[in-house]
């Protein structure tokens, strides 16, 4: 179970890196008063919430393993 979590953390780090690259690539062309930061904020929030959801489901599965 722990090795699965390590792989998950590794993939999350890679995806965060890709996300930062994407944001950096676009943010150079942003305009005053445009919606770039709103998009980035919303997607970052969704990203974090998704990690929390996945980890909470995974911890529920782990807890049932301990129970067995």
């Amino acid at each position, binding site marked *: 179970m722990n090795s699965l979590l390590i792989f998950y953390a590794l993939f999350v780090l890679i995806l965060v890196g890709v996300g930062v690259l*994407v944001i950096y690539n676009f943010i150079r*062309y942003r305009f005053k008063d445009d919606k770039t930061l709103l998009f980035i904020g919303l*997607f970052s929030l969704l990203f974090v919430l998704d990690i929390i959801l996945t980890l909470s*489901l995974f911890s529920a599965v782990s807890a049932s*393993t301990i129970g067995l």
Partner: protein
Amino acid sequence: MINDLLHSFPGQDQNEAVFVFARPYPVAFLGTALIFFIVFIFSVLGQLALMNTNFFQISDTNVIGFAVLFLGIFQLATIIVFLVAVLDFYYDLIIVTDRRLIDIDQEQLFFRRIAELSLEDIEDVSSQTQGFLQDLFNYGTVEIQTAGAKDNFNIRNIHMPREVAAITLDLSEKAKRGVTEHLRLPDTSIMGVINNRAITSPGALLAAGAMQPTDMRRSPRNAFE
């Protein structure tokens, strides 16, 4: 430095007023957004279904844990792909100034094409709305035919395409008649489209930041002095 309307593309002159600054209309993105939403929701439902052992008949918790994390990674990748799609769509731009037309196409993540056309080189401008959504929300395609061997410009999913076409054509005709750049002002009832909003007076252009405060066209009286 963050761009603004008076510094919206490389090579913009200091007193170059902007009459059209338009991004694709958001309604045109609904189809793509719906696909991403369905994929994401099904993935989350898959995770929740995995927690219910009766649904997939899997009893090995290692397999369930792996599947939950795999779907989690899939969701995160979907979020990033969706962000790229949103920004790809949002960063397409058409800009019409008192001396040129600029078409900025964000085609892929690292591919940005900027095409420029002098108003004098515009041969004809037409607009087209096609289908129920485009008709209902007043967005469509503006096609700009160019003189000579230059490629035509097709600008898709633009809000108020008729108005954008009329403004571009009017400015082009003024340029061909030899009207000085800093005196060109569209005679159309809507004289500008900035961020999908109709502009009806030079004062509103000034307020939108599309014109220098010292511009002679800021009030109609000054424009003809």
